[in-house]
């Protein structure tokens, strides 16, 4: 809502208050003012002039030399290039020394040898908004009506000495979608009176010939029709144009302008029909037939459904109620007999139709938010009076009305105790009553209990709490004290799961990964590009109306998003990327969603290039499987997961069949890690990239806190190294398992410290060297004992894996 300061001051006394001060007061009491703008874009020294003579420039076909009386004592000679300038016009003259928007200064000058003592201006040159100008003012100089006063300052003539307050209204304060609504608010804040417009209407015609009936009583509660004859359609006077333009509305003609003016003044949408196009002067408000057609004012043919409310005559539709008029009964320059509609349609009806047809006019906005039912007829009368005043129309006697129901004001009670408890204040009755008075809410008060009759313009107030808010905002939020909740003390803390989630995040950061957060809505093709962790088939969940396919489907795996991130970085020359994300995936087995999908928190990572920056001490070390496994190992260790088992996994979608492992604890799969399948890498345009993905709930379930400590050993340990030669196909895990089994309890730890393939051993063999640490908690081990165990180990290795000691 754009509010002209000058216009507003007609309803409330604003003396001594600048537009900016007013804006601050409004904002601090609940009506946010987004901007205060001067209507003057930088104009000075422009006056109204009269073109006494016009002749062609002797040396330029397109220029005119004008003699202008601008009330300056002597006539001015001005050269003008506009084709529409002519003798006898009232025009806007920028005098020598004038300033125009854009830093233009008018100086005495010669144009092709002829002196020019100023400039005749177009509307645009004065900084007026192009879109708000009548068509005939968009080209050439601005021609004013004959009654414009010679020598008058253009700033006051055009209303440029005004300010516009742009309100950012919350949905509950639709009452401020009108000048009067704002006036009531301002009056309440300032403790002033509201001066309502004077309605001076003379019924100087015959009887009103209209017949009005409502056939759709659930959609339309009131309909009032006025009838006019002998109207003369013309442009509106300048004051009307100025106000409409200040409010951002384009002037059209005096009748249409009046309906728009009253829309702004009262918040009441109105509509004017050419009465000669209304059959039998009979208006019926009814629902449309399914498929009924109407050509609207914008020359579009609209097909309507049976829930559309229509204003009709006995033969045809005339307007879509509250949304847009029909072309068939539009006011034209030839119209002289007029019907003026002032009605009340339910917000739901207008909202629905406006949505269905995709139309959203100024009127629709007000209908949807609720128009004051108590002022429909008053607004109609105000418009009727203005139409009579501006078009000289004859007004027929009487209003023809159909009324289904009338608005009843809400009655709401609130106690002083409630107000003080809710706000934490200690107000007295003497603080509260004046606030309701300033709001002009009639009330009765008994024993600190107010019974308030809320005017229908404030439809947002229905509960005691709503009254508490009125008191609070006019008392001033700044004046409410500051305290802390008393009452039961609570112990704030994170749950175990929340703590472990942080542990995971902080640990991965410690291993050198950067935390990323990506979009949960992804492209449908990418949802399953790299498998999630779900074991059963899930159906990706998609939006009904996505804004783009790119963000239309909920992810079931974090890895595709991370791969996109890696690709995004690669495109920006970031070749070393190591990232992880903690985020939810969305799993549903349903074809058609009837219940919420399961949301599981996953943690996933992606690494490419080098984890550690290139340095002077060593060669490049690109990320490989074992680097990622090391990170996973350390995370599992950090969570106290000691029994994890890595199993080669050849068939995880999107993963390299030979370089992927699943991580199992007992019979549960926690997650997987490995290299992305080269085909997938290609699809994403990636270099060699490694990923891991785990289900956080499974990690947390497997996690174990250090339960108790084991005593530190009292007896020394003995270390034996075994270098083994074995077929290349035998996995290290098999050797480890065999050693552990054969060595029994004496084996304290087992470390693989070397793997070798190469010239010094057979081609199909590899060498693996283990360090075995033995210890007996009770006594010092004897050489013979260790020899025995070692022999058993070597024997078992030979039998089970074919490994031989390397000589």
């Amino acid at each position: 809502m754009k509010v002209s300061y000058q216009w507003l001051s007609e309803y409330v006394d604003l003396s001594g208050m600048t537009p900016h001060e007013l804006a601050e007061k409004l904002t601090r009491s609940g009506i946010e003012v987004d901007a205060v703008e001067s209507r003057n874009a930088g104009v000075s020294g422009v006056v109204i002039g009269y073109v006494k003579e016009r002749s062609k420039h002797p040396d330029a076909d397109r220029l005119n030399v004008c003699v202008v009386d601008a009330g300056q004592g002597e006539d001015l000679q001005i050269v003008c290039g506009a084709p529409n300038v002519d003798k006898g016009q009232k025009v806007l003259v920028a005098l020598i020394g004038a300033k125009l928007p854009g830093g233009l200064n008018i100086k005495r000058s010669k144009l092709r040898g002829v002196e020019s003592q100023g400039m005749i201006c177009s509307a645009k040159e004065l900084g007026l908004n192009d879109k708000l100008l009548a068509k005939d003012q968009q080209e050439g100089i601005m021609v004013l009506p004959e009654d414009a006063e010679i020598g008058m300052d253009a700033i006051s003539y055009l209303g440029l000495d005004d300010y516009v307050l742009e309100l950012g209204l919350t949905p509950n304060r639709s009452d401020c979608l009108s000048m009067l609504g704002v006036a009531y608010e301002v009056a309440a804040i300032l403790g002033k009176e509201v001066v309502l417009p004077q309605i001076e209407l003379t019924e100087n015609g015959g009887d009103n010939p209209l017949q009005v009936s409502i056939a759709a009583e659930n959609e339309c509660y009131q309909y009032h029709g006025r009838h006019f004859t002998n109207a003369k359609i013309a442009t509106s006077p300048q004051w009307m144009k100025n106000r409409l333009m200040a409010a951002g509305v384009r002037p059209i003609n005096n009748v249409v302008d009046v309906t728009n003016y009253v829309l702004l003044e009262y918040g009441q949408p109105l509509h004017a029909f050419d009465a000669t196009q209304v059959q039998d002067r009979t208006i019926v408000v009814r629902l449309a037939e399914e498929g009924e057609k109407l050509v609207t004012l914008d020359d579009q043919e609209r097909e309507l459904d049976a829930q559309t409310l229509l204003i009709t005559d006995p033969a045809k539709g005339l307007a879509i109620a509250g949304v847009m008029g029909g072309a068939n009964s539009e006011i034209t320059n030839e119209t002289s007999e007029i019907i003026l509609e002032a009605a009340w349609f339910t917000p739901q009806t207008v909202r629905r139709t406006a949505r269905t047809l995709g139309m959203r006019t100024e009127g629709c906005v007000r209908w949807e938010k609720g128009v004051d039912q108590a002022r429909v007829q008053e607004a109609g009368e105000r418009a009727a009076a203005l139409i009579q005043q501006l078009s000289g129309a004859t007004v027929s006697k009487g209003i023809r009305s159909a009324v289904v129901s009338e608005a009843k004001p809400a009655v709401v009670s609130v106690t002083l105790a409630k107000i003080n408890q809710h706000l934490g204040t200690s107000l007295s009755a003497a603080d509260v009553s004046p606030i309701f008075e300033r709001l002009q809410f009639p009330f009765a008060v008994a024993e600190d209990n107010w019974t308030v009759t809320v005017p229908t313009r404030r439809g947002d107030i229905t509960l005691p709490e709503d009254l508490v808010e009125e008191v609070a905002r006019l008392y001033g939020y700044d004046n409410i004290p500051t305290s802390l909740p008393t009452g039961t003390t609570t112990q704030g803390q994170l749950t175990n799961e929340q703590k472990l989630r942080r542990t995971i995040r902080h640990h991965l950061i410690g291993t050198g990964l950067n935390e990323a957060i990506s979009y949960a809505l992804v492209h449908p093709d990418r949802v399953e590009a790299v498998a999630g962790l779900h074991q059963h088939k899930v159906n990706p969940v998609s939006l009904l109306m996505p804004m783009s396919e790119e963000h239309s489907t909920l992810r079931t795996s974090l890895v595709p998003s991370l791969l996109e991130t890696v690709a995004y970085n690669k495109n920006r020359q970031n070749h070393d990327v190591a990232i992880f994300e903690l985020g939810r995936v969305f799993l549903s087995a349903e074809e058609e969603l009837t219940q919420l999908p399961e949301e599981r928190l996953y943690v996933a990572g992606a690494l490419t290039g080098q984890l550690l920056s290139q340095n002077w001490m060593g060669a490049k070390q690109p990320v490989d499987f074992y680097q990622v496994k090391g990170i996973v190992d350390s995370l599992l260790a950090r969570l106290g997961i000691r029994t994890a088992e890595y199993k080669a996994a050849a068939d995880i979608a999107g993963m390299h069949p030979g370089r992927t492992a699943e991580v199992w604890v007992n019979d549960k799969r926690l997650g997987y890690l490995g290299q992305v399948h080269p085909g997938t890498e290609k699809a994403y345009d990636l270099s060699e990239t490694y990923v891991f993905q785990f289900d956080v709930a499974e990690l947390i379930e497997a996690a174990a806190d250090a339960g108790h400590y084991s005593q530190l050993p009292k007896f020394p340990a003995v270390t034996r190294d075994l270098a083994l030669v074995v077929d290349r196909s035998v996995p290290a895990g098999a050797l480890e398992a065999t050693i552990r089994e054969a060595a029994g309890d004496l084996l304290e730890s087992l470390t693989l410290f070397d793997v070798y393939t190469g010239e010094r051993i057979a081609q199909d063999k590899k060498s693996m060297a283990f360090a075995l640490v033995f210890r007996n908690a009770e006594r010092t081990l004897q050489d013979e004992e260790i020899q025995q165990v070692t022999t058993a180990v070597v024997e078992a290795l030979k039998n089970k894996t074919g490994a031989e000691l390397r000589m």
Partner: protein
Amino acid sequence: MQTRLQEMKESALGQISQVTEAAQLQDLRVKYLGKKGELTELLRGMGSLSPEERPVVGQLVNEVREALEAAFSGKQQAIEEAALNAKLSSQTVDVTLPGRPVPAGTMHPLSRIIEEIEDIFVGLGFEVAEGPEVELDHFNFEMLNLPKGHPARDMQDTFYVTDEILMRTHTSPVQARTMLKKEGKTPVKIICPGKVYRRDDDDATHSHQFTQIEGLVVDKGIGMSDLKGILLTFARQMFGADQQIRLRPSFFPFTEPSAEVDLQCFNCGGHGCRVCKQTGWIEILGSGMVHPRVLEMAGYNPEEVSGFAFGMGVERIAMLKYGVEDIRHFYTNDVRFLRQFNRG
């Protein structure tokens, strides 16, 4: 004999002072003080002295021995020190060469803000509550006093999955879920961080996915002054001990009265600058007293208990705090962006 002792002493001291290596010093020590050394030899000659001379010469021998031993150990120390100095100087490194790299990742700025805010409110006795990102219309709107057809639903244009299921547009449904779970018990003191989704075209200041933190307190006797107190405490812990806040009346369907909360601009300290658009204040959160219908629907009697709620956008706070100019940076994850958030 006394003369010989004196001569020996002088000659020995002279030799010791010339020595530069440990081995030479050892040789000298053997030569003078060893079992077959010169001093020992001289002592053997003591038998031929008269009883009167013996104590005098004996004392002199001891004096000479002590002097030599002191000279030997002094020299020994000097040689060792010189050797150590030589070794140390050969071990000098270039301290300006880069250190051996150790992995160090970074936390996402949004996570940092969330953890910081969680910690502040946990300290104030709050718990952290969570709820689904794909939500029922019932919890996202209806339980929050936003029935179907309510004009304020326009304020949060929604991604629907079905007619009844949607991407939550705010973290407020967690309020409703938590209160229902509490079955009317008080107090309720929670904050709810989480991702939310709205139909916005992604640009520098809009993102179809963003992050909110919601707070809720329900108990007997809670008033708007308590809301002011909690938010002021939060603002001071988060943004500095001399922070000020300012409440302005506003509207949310689920609170009454409602307030926008402004923070004194931390860029200019309230004097007015580009960041606060010359107002001295920055809007950081929405808040209010829980609407009685919301309490009622969640199983609380608004005549007996009251509460307040507040909600803030994490991206907005991160953008203000770190000076990030484009909200999309948080989700495109350029590592050059992520690596900047290395502290904390």
